[in-house]
């Protein structure tokens, strides 16, 4: 398995040879930041395109086909359009908060995104409480949504924001519980370390029953966390026109739109990292030839394949189910997911204590 840290180390040494360490680190930070943002944009574009094609396929139609080969340039067009669209200033809105909100949302999203370990040695933010940090960073997003709803001076926005507040805070609990289940199994919170421990088998296999339950709970709660159907109440189109971003136009709306899709990717990427072995290739004990072949596939390919598979799964769910009502969302969380999550955590503890895992 190729270790990307060789490359970064080499660059670091090369830079140190021509400049002082402080400057070198600063330069590296800038370069990494730019790369991160670039990747963020690319992922956003890919995700939006995928969403449009996948939903079209579920709905027995074609989706974008006319711009570029198979419609691949469609989202690029949207980007140009968004960039040139007027940004409307709303009278009687809280101007400062109104303009700030989309940036908070995108900031939270970028922060969480930078925690994802894409390949061995290709982690941007990686430290011993990585899981905590990711969750904390991603939950800043709800502040942005609340601000957007509050400052827009629009009743629909306000209702959307309130809904999203209730929903996201509730579902963070379930996400936490299901991740905690795996933390019990791994006894580490560092994301890169979690991946390394899956070298001999992904946690979803190692932890068998409790891990699978945790995975399902995570998918449901993760879907709710990013406000996607069937949990898309905050922007429920048929009820609240566009929910918390009703009043946003142009690129401000574009930021919300992009953040929504990248958040989905983050949720999927985290699922891939924690449950499906991240960039670890698929190894079947006993089949050495197969395992060697799998090892030739680079780690980031594994990571993206797994993440996009989870994304596809979530899209399948989104495009099949009707939307829940606000009280049902809370019922689902507090009456079903949280008790199951807690019982599952207990089960995992038993599994770990009695060494029942693989």
């Amino acid at each position, binding site marked *: 398995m190729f270790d990307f840290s060789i490359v970064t180390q080499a660059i670091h040494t090369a830079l140190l040879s021509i400049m002082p360490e402080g400057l070198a680190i600063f330069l590296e930070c800038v370069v990494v930041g730019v790369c991160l943002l670039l990747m963020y944009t690319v992922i956003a574009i890919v995700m939006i395109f995928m969403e449009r094609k996948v939903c079209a396929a579920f709905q027995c139609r074609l989706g974008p086909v006319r711009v570029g080969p198979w419609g691949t340039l469609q989202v690029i067009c949207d980007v140009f359009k968004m960039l040139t669209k007027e940004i409307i200033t709303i009278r009687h809105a809280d101007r400062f908060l109104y303009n700030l909100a989309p940036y908070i949302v995108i900031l939270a999203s970028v922060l969480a995104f930078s925690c994802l370990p894409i390949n061995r040695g290709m982690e941007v933010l990686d430290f011993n409480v990585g899981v905590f940090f990711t969750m904390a960073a991603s939950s800043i997003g709800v502040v942005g949504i609340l601000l957007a709803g509050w400052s827009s001076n629009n009743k629909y926005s306000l209702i959307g924001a309130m809904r999203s507040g209730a929903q996201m805070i509730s579902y963070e609990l379930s996400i936490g519980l299901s991740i905690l289940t795996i933390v019990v199994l791994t006894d580490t919170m560092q994301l890169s370390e979690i991946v390394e421990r899956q070298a001999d088998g992904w946690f979803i296999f190692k932890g068998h029953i409790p891990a699978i339950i945790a995975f399902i709970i995570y998918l449901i709660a993760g879907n709710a966390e990013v406000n996607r159907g069937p949990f898309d109440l905050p922007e429920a189109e048929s009820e609240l026109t566009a929910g918390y971003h009703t009043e946003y136009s142009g690129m401000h709306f574009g930021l919300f739109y992009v953040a929504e899709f990248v958040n989905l990717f983050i949720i999927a990427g985290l699922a891939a990292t924690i449950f499906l072995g991240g960039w670890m290739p698929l190894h079947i004990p006993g089949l050495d030839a197969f395992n060697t072949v799998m090892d030739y596939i680079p780690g980031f390919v594994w990571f993206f394949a797994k993440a996009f598979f989870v994304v596809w799964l979530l899209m399948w769910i989104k495009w099949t189910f*009707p939307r*829940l009502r606000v009280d049902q969302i809370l019922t689902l969380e507090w009456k079903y997911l949280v008790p199951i999550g807690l019982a599952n955590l207990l089960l995992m503890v038993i599994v770990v204590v009695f060494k029942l895992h693989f």
Partner: protein
Amino acid sequence: MWKRNTSYNMTIREKITAWEPAAEWSAEGDGMLTVPVETFHDLAVRLKREGFDFLRSLTGMDWGEGRFGAVYHIESTATGENIVLRVFTPAPDKCGLPSVGDVWKGALLNEREAYDYFGIQFLNHPDMRRLYLRDDWVGHPLRKDYDPALNPLRMNNEVSQDSTPHFELMPDGSLIRKREVIFDEGEYVINVGPQHPATHGVLRFRVSLEGEIIRKLDVHCGYIHRGIEKMCESLTYPQTLALTDRLDYLGASQNRHALCMCIEKGLGLEVSRRVQYIRTIMDELQRIDSHLLFFSCLCMDMGALTAFFYGFRDREKVLDILEQTTGGRLIQNYNVIGGVQADIHPDFVRRVKEFIAYMRPTLREYHEIFTGNVIARQRLVGTGVLTREDAISFGATGGTGRASGWACDVRKRHPYAMYGEVDFDEVLFTEGDCYARYMVRMREIEQSLRIIEQLIDNIPEGEYRTKTKPVIRIPEGTYYSAVEGSRGEFGVFIESRGDKSPYRMKFRSTGLPLVSCLETIARGAKIADLIAIGGTLDYVVPDIDR
């Protein structure tokens, strides 16, 4: 079929004449009783007690020379008896009729409509605002002396009033005007529509919320009020036909059928059996089309977007069949006075059969993806309950009424075309909730397929169009015909004075009663339920506003 009613009328007519010796019978057309205004409210209460609990239609009238009034079509749901009453306003210069909104709730919006059209003030009506037109509209457009120049296009925004006028009769015979509050200052009122994805057009609600729970709901209609009834008064009979398609565009075929039937009844014209067969099949195809669209839109409103596409995919197949024969997808222009525009296409029978074979398994797919879904059930079962009494009182016919357990299908109550001879079930539920309303429509698709199946193979030979005179004049009198539209009873009321255009033409909207019962259903529900309720009531806004 209306002969039978006439014989029934005798008994109730006699009763009314006994109670009210001043009542006069006029026999032109369908015949109606003119009753005095002073005791009309008492009479209405008495009629209701007698079992006449369904106000089919309330038509405001201007008979010229300052004589205003209203025509009431009332039916007893228990016996199926019908009676038509006419009431004049007390004096030419005074416009006041007693409101019967407390007897039949469905009268409330209809009386507002009559006020809007003719300026007839209804005494003790709790909410005497205009129904369709802007509050600053000058005059009443359906009066015969109305001058359109009074109302140029106003581009200023309308201010929503939070209170409403209300008229009371003083002992000295004068009217006083009071105001009643609709929304308090402290209430959190949100505005749903006219441009809102879930109002199915340009209906507008003002909803007072407490958190997510609806406390009050105020319906605003008229954003697509096109004045069709007034336009009809200056069009010839064949020309009026074209406008009915555009009323409820998902029941275009049935609407036109109703008007053709009414005119044919006036003319005493019998159409051939072939025409009856074709019309019945077309009506049922249209019903399937409408119910598929209902399914699609309900799914979309509930957030299940994929099911929306499945519904539309299959709807296209119906539209293709319709288009091949009629030349129109949505607006077909098919029924004409005395028959249909063109004979059925040679491929018609084959394609309809193919469609029936295709549709049955597809319906199962719908049930798998949406009906059985636990989320859909949770959201539909038990929400938005309309009781049977309310359904009748509001006159909420069609799927909505049948979901509440009211057997209100015009095809069974007053069979027309081929419906007396085919075998089909009237789908009835008793729960009256959103789920029942949804299921009624899904089951009705199956019944429609069954009706078509029985007819499609034995369409008799015959002419598809009976020759009529070049200029059609209906003998003097009043006529009322009703069909089961895609979403309830669609009635046409014509008052003719023997001219080539009607003196007054009123369409009994299928949507208006549905909208009027919305407040009752939605109160206490959540805002998301409002969307489900609106979706399952299945109104079409241009049909409400006309």
